[in-house]
């Protein structure tokens, strides 16, 4: 059996699945000040009366690192940044202890200017003196040649508890993002490590010696051990859980918009033939632009509990939330109050909702029922227009070859799948107000936890060959090899898949059956100097597609059938 647990802002959702059934589903309140307690409560309640030996896998998605970053609750870390010519690295300062140093590598990974060991040692001394225990080291073009980052670590390794190297984080080119991502990894490392060590210890104590997997923002999982070195990968896994939940029930023959309508926000994503789209760049959080792979999601400040106001004669919704709907004891009118006033939702105190809408109705000079109607329609129409914007943005993504521009697949969703608390109510109205086919995701209240439970391990490998220089390298994987002039693109692809497989199986503890691999980038250039071809420049990027683990299709099918009945 599998446990899927998704910590959200208000609730922590937990499910227990076996190969045929959703055995149990629960919700516990999230205590933001003690997430560990919320996770433990969820885990122990879902396993009540279950033989711990039957649990094979636990997948967790938490807001731990996200909260730490959003609240700025991060320890002092040291950043050492080697830039060389380009934009002044002072623009990329992440924190107090930020040191640009000498040294430069160019776009082909050639060393242009050496490091200055004395300078590095002096920086190390300053950092140690300031009580810093975690250090990030980032070089420009280190994803082409990591030697400077490695050298810096060698010089300083004895003085610090953990040194994070930029080139291990991603094979992508983006120095400022590499700096921010390395910083975040170093900064959330202690809290992440402490938390999950405690979770593991506690599960062990309950007799569950099972592999623990952690959900990432790209909708895939990684092993707990692997996550300790890359804790930044756990940021913003919540929206990914919901998307994977929808994935379990999504048709594969068309494009779909997924809407997760929560209390504070609505999160949107697009599935292309049942597979979620990946953001080509990386997560943005609290002003940090990162290289953390994530699903392409868009979040708007419009949920069931968003505050409704009349501003200059116009109804507005959100982006803030002041608590629950008035019908549930809150203090400001919300879209949920509109649903209550319209008798669509019936388990609340209607009188309170109506009282909440009354001042709005008076200002607008219309009836309360009409006001509620307008609020509900406005919420639906904004969600629809924002999702159309998201689709347009995906289709406007620049491409760099004539082939891609010509053949460029345009996402064209005609179906919407809705999950989250008020999903069924919204689904109906969204369908009325648009030409989409709108479905509610089965078990919409816990589909996110189902998504977490069933998500497979994902990862990505970037391989770079420069046959003029005779090198084949994937610094992120600590891989480097000399190759001859005749090294080919086919050999490079083969190597990339080999590295990817190894990464997924070993580090992600994936199942061999779940290795659905594909190429994300496949470029080969003849390098011409003078009038002669002097080599080839080959760039390969391969990934394990986000998706669901093998062998649990029956559960999803059963839940779908159940929902249709």
């Amino acid at each position: 059996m599998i446990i899927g647990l998704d910590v959200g802002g208000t609730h922590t959702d937990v499910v227990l699945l076996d190969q045929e059934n959703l055995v149990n589903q629960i919700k516990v309140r999230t205590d933001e000040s003690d997430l560990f307690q919320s996770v433990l409560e969820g885990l122990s309640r879902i396993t009540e009366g279950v033989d711990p030996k039957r649990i094979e896998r636990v997948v967790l998605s938490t807001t731990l690192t996200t909260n730490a970053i959003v609240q700025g609750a991060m320890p002092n870390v040291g950043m050492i940044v080697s830039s060389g010519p380009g934009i002044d690295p002072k623009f990329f300062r992440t924190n107090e202890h930020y040191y640009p140093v000498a040294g430069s590598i160019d776009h082909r990974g050639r060393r242009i200017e050496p490091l200055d060991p004395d300078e590095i040692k002096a920086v190390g001394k300053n950092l140690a003196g300031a009580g810093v225990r975690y250090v990030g080291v980032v070089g420009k073009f280190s994803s082409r040649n990591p030697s400077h980052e490695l050298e810096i670590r060698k010089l300083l390794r004895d003085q610090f508890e953990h040194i994070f190297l930029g080139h291990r984080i991603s094979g992508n080119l983006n120095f400022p993002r590499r700096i921010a991502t390395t910083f975040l990894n170093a900064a959330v490392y202690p809290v992440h490590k402490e938390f999950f060590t405690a979770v593991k210890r506690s599960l062990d104590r309950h007799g569950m010696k099972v592999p623990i997997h952690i959900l990432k923002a790209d909708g895939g999982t990684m092993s707990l051990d692997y996550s300790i070195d890359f804790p930044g990968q756990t940021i913003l896994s919540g929206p990914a859980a919901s998307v994977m939940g929808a994935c379990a029930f999504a048709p594969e023959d068309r494009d779909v918009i997924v809407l997760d309508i929560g209390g504070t926000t609505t999160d949107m994503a697009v599935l292309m033939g049942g597979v979620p789209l990946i953001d080509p760049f990386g997560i943005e959080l609290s002003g940090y632009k990162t290289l953390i792979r994530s699903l392409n999601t868009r979040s708007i400040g419009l949920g069931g509990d968003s505050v409704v106001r009349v501003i200059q004669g116009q109804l507005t919704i959100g982006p803030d939330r002041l608590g629950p709907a008035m019908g549930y004891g809150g203090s400001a009118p919300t879209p949920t109050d509109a649903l209550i006033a319209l008798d669509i939702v019936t388990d609340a105190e209607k009188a309170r909702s109506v009282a909440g809408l009354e001042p709005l109705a008076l200002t607008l000079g219309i009836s309360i029922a009409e006001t509620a109607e307008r609020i509900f329609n406005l919420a639906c129409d904004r969600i629809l227009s924002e999702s159309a914007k998201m689709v347009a943005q995906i289709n406007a993504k620049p491409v760099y070859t004539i082939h891609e521009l010509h053949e460029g697949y345009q996402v064209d969703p005609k179906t919407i799948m809705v999950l989250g608390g008020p999903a069924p109510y919204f689904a109906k109205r969204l369908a009325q107000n648009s030409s989409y086919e709108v479905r509610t995701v089965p078990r919409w209240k816990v589909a996110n936890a189902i998504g977490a439970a069933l998500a497979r391990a994902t990862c990505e490998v970037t391989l770079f060959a420069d046959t003029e220089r005779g090198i084949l390298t994937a610094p992120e994987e600590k891989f480097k090899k000399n190759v001859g002039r005749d090294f080919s693109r086919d050999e490079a692809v083969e190597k990339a898949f080999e590295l990817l497989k190894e990464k997924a199986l070993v580090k992600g503890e994936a199942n061999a059956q779940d290795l659905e691999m594909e190429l994300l980038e496949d470029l080969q250039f003849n390098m011409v100097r003078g009038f002669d071809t002097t080599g080839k420049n080959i760039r390969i990027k391969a990934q394990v597609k986000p998706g669901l683990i093998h062998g649990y299709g029956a559960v999803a099918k059963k839940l779908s059938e159940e929902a249709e009945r």
Partner: protein
Amino acid sequence: MIKSKNRTGLVFFPAFDWAIDPTHPEREERLLYTQDQVFEEGILDIEGITEFKPDLVTATDIQRTHFCVPDVWSVTTESHFISAGGAKTIGMAVMDKKIERGFALVRPPGHHAMRVVHGCRGFCNINIEAIMIEYLRKAYGIRRVAIVDTDCHHGDGTQDLYWHDPDTLFISIHQDGRTLYPGSGFINELGGPNAFGTTINIPLPPYTSEEGFLYSIEKVVLPILADFKPELVINSAGQDNHYSDPITNMNFSAQGYARLTDMLKADIAVLEGGYSIEGALPYVNAGIILAMAGIDYSHIHEPDYDPVRMRQARSITQQIKEIGDKVLSYWQEREAIKEKLRPAGPFTERNRRIFYDTDGITETQREKIRICSDCGGALRIDSETDSGARILAVHIPMHACRACQETGYRWFGEARTTDFGKIYLQDRPKDEYLVK
């Protein structure tokens, strides 16, 4: 946090799957390292810099500018539609005020493509800046445009297209034509009889460095631009003046290009040549983008940059000053010289031979223009290639007077298909293109 001062747009289309031929300078690899640098510097993440996907131009857009022989499809590939489309996308974004400035980092280039196109010259088939400008004129009603061509080669195609247009100021600053392809662009090339003075050439001696380029921009180009008062300034931003460029002999640098961009403050820049794909382009393009966006570019330089080694000889400085003085004096006296040189008759003719180096075609042109003080003048081009393709092209300019419009239609009507393989009429006031 890094933030741009000017909302800046970028179309980046490296055409990674298109080359003139595998070892040609204009090949797949050309913008590969530029892409690496732009990505690694995180330029596309900078707040205020927006990347646009290029639209494709249409055949109508191309025919608004060119006479393609025998037709558009025969002398272009899809990459040309995208490259011109990239420029058009940026132009529209500027006109729509989505951005304040924009840079079309596209290939293939276009500034050697003339009004009549039989094939490829100097790596260019169609003139991507002109196609953009003519589109903007039609769609947004703008009239006065200035083009500053800073490619190392004389922008002879753009010069040809605007030779008779008094509404377009074309300034080309380039390596002296006696020492470099295409061998033209001398100071005394000043435009046709109806548009005398609005073509300006600043040929610089080989080994001109930052000092000379920036002097010419500051002391010659900027004052002329200020006089002309264009609604839109376009920079044909070739990058082959760089000291490491393999096919030219200049000593310009990434810092110099960034400064030039900063001084010129063009609304739109369009990439032209530049073939030092590793040593120059990554740094020059990064510098240009930052300068356009108004971001500190002082740390951008080539790994091997040494300003001392690049200092120009005193004799060159002196030559450049003399060239500048002469250009300025022509500019100031343009009206008087125009009157003096004005042909007597109602028409004037010139005969030219045009060589398409890339495609190995030689074209002979007989060009006839109606002398007119009310408009750019009706233009008739009788063109024949060495392989025997003979056509007649009639151009009626955008703001043509009535007499010139009638002249154009008369030429078109009188021409016999027995004499010419094709007869074309480009009627800009009506935005029509007729073929017989």
